[in-house]
């Protein structure tokens, strides 16, 4: 290779019925570099990547790999050309073993046309050894973590001798530690001359690994920069196309009496002796690594799982929460971390999703009051700034951020006193994130109590008044706002250090 460009995109355009998704896209990726693509949801990042990977066909424009024009027909063809893509949502068969997964769709055959398992084992062991990964080829994927499976996807890409690896938000579901491991792997790949196209919403991470950053907005390339020539605020400004006054619109709010008090909450084998207090007007953060038990505690609090022991007091009154209905009656609401699984009914309308948690309010003596339902839905969706063609549109047609706002609207209709937000900004773009932060502030101003779980430390540090840190199913520390630092949080989150239980008072 004497030219210094691995992948070149020239004048690519793509339209969907009624929309121009990509318009005159030009950008290029150098060998052995990490090229980060930034942009809000819907800016066209995924569409562009799907064109490079052969899933979509461009209406116009050219793609060059190592200076040669290519016409990518399908993902298989892309792989032959040296392009591999690691999707945000990993598709795999949980019952499959590691070696099966690596060769599925491409199984080597013996001369009798049967699968050559010996060869597979040999190749797998070699690949694992070469990459320094310590896995057993016969481990089933369901026994592995998301990050392990991601590593295997990378291994797959390596086994195809890919020159270009596209990673679509690879860190959205893995922990800090695992992210570190991923970045090490990326560095290794880079050193070997592999080009990485990296899509992410996480600014700190982008600046850690990028060599070049390209910003997309509304289907066009806004700018491409060397990492050193640009800073976070500029990137955000370019992505959003407007200035966000401040990344976190935190305001001081008067703190009231204790709303929620949890004592000795235990769920056998999941978390143990959890104690915390939340006051009116507070935003309380729960930090910790994935699997620390944060979501599990909140699920019990919200009646989704049973507790083994412990007590919950709301407004100084002991309450008994056996199911979600009890929780809602006691003024609780919970926005789940897994929106598709616990948040929305994909095939039903925005209206039906918005009123789901509060149905009896719209049915008078068993009969639907349609006008009331329409007007409440419209009012709430306007408050949340939901962008949807109509309220009868199925919710699955909306972008992630708008779906999240509808789910929030659903809980707002219940008018809860205590709102639990589990990863409220996961997978949504900067603009929608900001709107959710603003909403959080306006809620605590109304005297509500917020509990926020997040894996993004900057967000916790920016928004919370107080923070609990969990590790291995226990609360290991409590931090006041002036004590928030990434180091302090990580110290407790990794379980190196633990405060004495009574110092929480």
């Amino acid at each position, binding site marked *: 290779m004497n030219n210094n460009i691995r992948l070149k995109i020239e004048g690519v355009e793509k339209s969907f019925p009624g929309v121009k998704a990509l318009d005159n896209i030009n950008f290029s990726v150098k060998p052995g570099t990490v090229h980060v693509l930034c942009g809000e949801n819907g800016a066209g990042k995924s569409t562009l990547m799907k064109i490079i990977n052969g899933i979509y066909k461009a209406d116009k424009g050219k793609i060059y790999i190592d200076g040669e024009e290519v016409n990518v027909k399908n993902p298989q063809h892309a792989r032959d050309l040296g392009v591999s893509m690691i999707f945000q949502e990993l598709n795999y068969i949980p019952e499959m073993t590691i070696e099966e997964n690596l060769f599925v769709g491409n199984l080597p055959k013996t001369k009798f046309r049967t699968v050559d398992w010996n060869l597979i084992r040999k190749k797998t062991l070699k690949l694992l050894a070469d990459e320094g990964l310590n896995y057993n080829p016969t481990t089933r994927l369901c026994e592995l973590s998301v990050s392990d499976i991601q590593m295997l996807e990378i291994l797959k890409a390596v086994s195809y001798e890919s020159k270009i690896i596209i990673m679509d938000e690879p860190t959205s579901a893995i922990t800090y530690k695992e992210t570190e491991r991923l970045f090490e792997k990326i560095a290794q790949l880079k050193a070997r001359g592999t080009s990485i196209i990296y899509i992410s919403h996480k600014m700190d991470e982008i600046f850690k690994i990028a060599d070049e950053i390209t910003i997309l907005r509304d289907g066009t390339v806004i700018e491409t920069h060397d990492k050193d020539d640009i800073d976070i605020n500029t990137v955000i400004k370019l992505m959003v196309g407007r200035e966000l006054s401040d990344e976190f619109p935190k305001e001081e709010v008067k703190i009231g009496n204790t709303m929620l008090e949890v004592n000795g909450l235990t769920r056998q084998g999941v978390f143990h002796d959890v104690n915390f207090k939340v006051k009116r007007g507070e935003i309380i953060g729960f930090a910790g690594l994935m699997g620390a038990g944060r979501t599990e505690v909140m699920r019990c609090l919200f009646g989704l799982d049973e507790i083994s022991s412990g007590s919950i007091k709301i407004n100084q009154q002991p309450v008994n929460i056996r199911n979600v209905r009890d929780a809602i009656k006691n003024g609780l609401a919970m926005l789940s971390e897994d929106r598709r699984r616990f948040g929305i*009914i994909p095939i039903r309308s925005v209206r039906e999703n918005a009123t789901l948690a509060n149905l009896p309010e719209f049915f008078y003596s068993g009969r639907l009051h349609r006008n009331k339902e329409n007007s409440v839905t419209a009012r709430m969706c306007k408050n949340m700034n939901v962008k949807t063609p109509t309220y009868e549109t199925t919710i699955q047609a*909306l972008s992630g951020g708008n779906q999240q706002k509808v789910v929030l609207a659903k809980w707002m209709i219940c008018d809860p006193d205590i709102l639990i937000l589990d990863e409220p900004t996961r997978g949504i773009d900067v603009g929608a994130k900001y709107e959710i932060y603003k909403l959080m502030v306006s809620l605590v101003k109304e005297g509500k109590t917020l509990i926020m779980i997040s894996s993004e430390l900057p967000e916790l540090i920016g928004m919370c008044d107080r923070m609990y840190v969990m590790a291995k199913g226990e609360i290991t520390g409590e931090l006041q706002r002036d004590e928030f630092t990434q180091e302090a949080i990580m110290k407790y989150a990794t379980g190196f250090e633990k405060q004495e239980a009574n110092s929480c008072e």
Partner: protein
Amino acid sequence: MNNSGLGIWSTLTRRYSIILVLAFLIILCAVLNDNFLSARNLTNVSRQISVTTILAFGETILIICGMLDLSSGSVLALAGVLSVSAYKGTESMAIAIAVAIAVAVICNIINGILITLLKAPPFIATLSMLAMARGAALFYTHGQNIYQIGGYKILGQGSVIGIPIPILFLAATMVVTWYILKHTCFGRSLYAIGGNEEAANASGINVDWNKMLAFIINGVFVGIAGVLFMSRVNAGLPNGAVGFEFQALTSSIIGGTSFSGGIGTAGGTLAGAFIVGFLNNIMNLANINSYIQQIIRGAIIALAVVYDIWSKNRRTRSVIGAIKESSK
């Protein structure tokens, strides 16, 4: 950018395509056979489909919330023969109907318990009920048909102001189903459960109770269908109504109820039932071999399911593609 048209258009085509198919079929049948549009023939078809259509309304309610009932034909037979023998003992139609409904509801409560409390998959739970109820019907009657059932036949064969009684029941169950699905909290919950059970639960909907209620209503419908069937054939047939659940499922699916749950309407099911009924009718009028008829009926189910999947994909692709890329 005007995307709102897309969403509405796809809902419209989805909602009314079934009516278009029905209208097309009616015109086709009318052209093919002069007798087709006669009041007598149309009343006949309605009467013929009434029993399976009542079952189909029950199936629609169940499929919408992500379940189904394979046992409805067998439970119908069990409820029917017990009802007939109750009538022979008491001469009271009221008791006979009450027995039929009670028996069918009990069988359906067992289905419901298996599915909600014991977490059995609906397919397996109702498959086992299919065998159990049929066995119970045969055991109770020693495999013999019950004849000389006297006044019991009125319900199946009589009419009120010129309208056959089965058709009145058909209309009543249709209205009940429509009202439940469209206007009640329970109906809305069914759609939510079928659309995403975990999200419905996390929104405070009592999933198990709603499923149980769906089975109870299905039971009431099956009981009514049992009385109508036995009185129409003028006997208590423990071996009757075999395969009725498949006709009912066919009507429901052709009527646009999505097998993956969360979508379906009473009107659609009625239209689906008439499509099946008219097809059978025209095939009979045209003297098509009854084995061939079975093949055609089977092929139509496949067609309906393929259409369901195809239209869903198309919708997802066009609407999601357009809205996602543009709404920013």
